């Protein structure tokens, strides 16, 4: 226990000492890794924000209006509404009668003028559906067209084009964001490995002596791995801080321009955790690879 404690103390002490003594190289490594983590974090957060904005738009787009024929009886409408309500693909169904439709339409002054001139209300009553999945909209559209109580001239109102485009944009953005993050991570691993190799090279005499007097491989390795972990942790904390500050400012700016970008606290926390985990893992693995070739004797 005493030996383990002493070995641990030695590793931590040496790691800290090495980090300070080679502050220039250490900070260059931290800065590089921090920059890359910042880019990865920024890319992920930006993708997530765009994704949530698009999700909100998609929710709006997942509505379909089914116009009812004027001759339909109230009982058959209630019956149809109940059938739709019980459909698992439907989130909500609301009935909008002719008066409500007129009031809604009258918000546009031109339509109000036309309605006044007409004297009667030509607008049909409708069932307004909110469905779970955009892909289901087409099915509801064709189902409505085969239902007798539905207005034959203008059966439904929804926008299939916008929906398709939205879905493409969402998947393209997610894919591009993911690829950028992956490329940056691979680049960071290579850079970290070389930074640490430079640091290890500067201390090759120390390693050589340790091996000569009979230190075990892991005893030699631990201080370097801890040093990588310290660097990774610092890089993650700094880049995480900057990413969140940037995210907060971005959300505030977006809200001022009336674009509803929600501040996602739980995603932010998960991302911070991911950055710390990524920084520590890349730092430790980079050190392991960097020190490996010097341990072959």
């Amino acid at each position, binding site marked *: 226990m005493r030996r383990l404690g002493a070995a641990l103390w030695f590793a931590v002490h040496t790691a800290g000492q090495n980090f300070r003594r080679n502050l220039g190289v250490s900070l260059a490594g931290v800065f590089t890794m921090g920059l890359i983590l910042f880019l990865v974090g920024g890319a992920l957060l930006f993708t997530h924000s765009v994704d949530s904005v698009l999700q909100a738009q998609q929710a709006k787009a997942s509505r379909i209006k089914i116009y009812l024929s004027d001759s339909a009886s109230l009982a058959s409408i209630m019956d149809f509404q109940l059938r739709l309500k019980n459909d698992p693909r439907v989130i909500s169904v609301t009935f909008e009668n002719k008066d409500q439709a007129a009031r809604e339409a009258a918000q546009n002054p031109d339509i109000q003028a036309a309605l006044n001139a007409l004297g009667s209300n030509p607008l049909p009553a409708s069932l307004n559906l909110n469905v779970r999945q955009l892909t289901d909209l087409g099915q509801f559209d064709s189902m409505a067209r085969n239902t007798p109580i539905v207005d034959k001239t203008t059966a439904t109102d929804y926008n299939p084009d916008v929906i398709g485009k939205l879905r493409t944009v969402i998947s393209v953005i997610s894919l591009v964001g993911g690829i950028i993050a992956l490329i940056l991570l691979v680049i960071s691993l290579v850079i970290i490995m070389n930074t640490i190799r430079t640091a290890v090279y500067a201390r090759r005499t120390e390693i050589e002596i*340790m091996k000569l007097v009979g230190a075990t491989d892991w005893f030699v390795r631990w201080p370097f791995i801890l040093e990588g972990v310290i660097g990774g942790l610092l890089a993650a904390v700094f880049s995480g801080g900057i990413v969140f500050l940037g995210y907060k400012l971005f959300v505030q700016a977006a809200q001022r321009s009336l674009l509803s970008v929600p501040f996602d606290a739980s995603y932010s926390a998960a991302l911070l955790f991911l950055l710390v985990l990524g920084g520590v893992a890349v730092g430790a693995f980079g050190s392991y690879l960097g020190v490996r070739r010097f341990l072959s004797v």
Partner: protein
Amino acid sequence: MSVALAERPIMSPAPALRPVISFHGVTKVYPNGTTALRDVNLAVHQGDFCFLVGASGAGKSTLVRLLIREETASTGRIFIDGHEITRMPHRKLPKLRRKFGIVFQDYKLLNTRTVAQNVAFALQVTRPGQRHLREKVEEVLWIVGLEDKLDKYPDELSGGEQQRVAIARALVHRPRIFLADEPTGNLDPDTSWGIVQLLLQINHRGTTVLMATHNREVVDLVRRRVIAIEDGRVIRDEAQGSYLREGEATI
């Protein structure tokens, strides 16, 4: 007999008589084709003091490297303390190397650490949690005559003093065998003599000492065992030898 003769373990004599170091038909060929050692057979016993002499490139350093398993023999077998090291797995090497105290021509000291820290380093990395570390370091620095230089840095010391620090570091864990590869190579004759005296003193305390050198004066003055290597072969092994064979001329 299903086991081939060569595969059978060599029967070791009783530990007291058993050599600390023994080479059995050892040949070392480097990957580039250079043959550094050819069919070397030798035995060194506990408490021996041996000079390993020969021109540069004769194979002295290869022999030292084979002992601490920095290199592996191409054929033949090497025993340290009765354990065969030629096929020893990598994970057992730290324990093997702890049997040795090693010094080199270029000292290999850490310039960012003080004399005392350099010596303590050897114990910290092999025996973490060692009790009475400071006392052990002071004791060994007293043996090498540097008890008043504890807090100096290597670059504040002379070459001879730096080699003494390296010797102290090699001694602090009380090795069975002391290996010195050209320890006086960078030193003037007077300082060299001081270092050799120190090695004799270490040997006097019971440690086996093997010193690779081409310092003729030292070898001729001390008159101890001399193993001469030429072209990778042991050409001479004398109990009280000189640097050159009797009657051999100096070039």
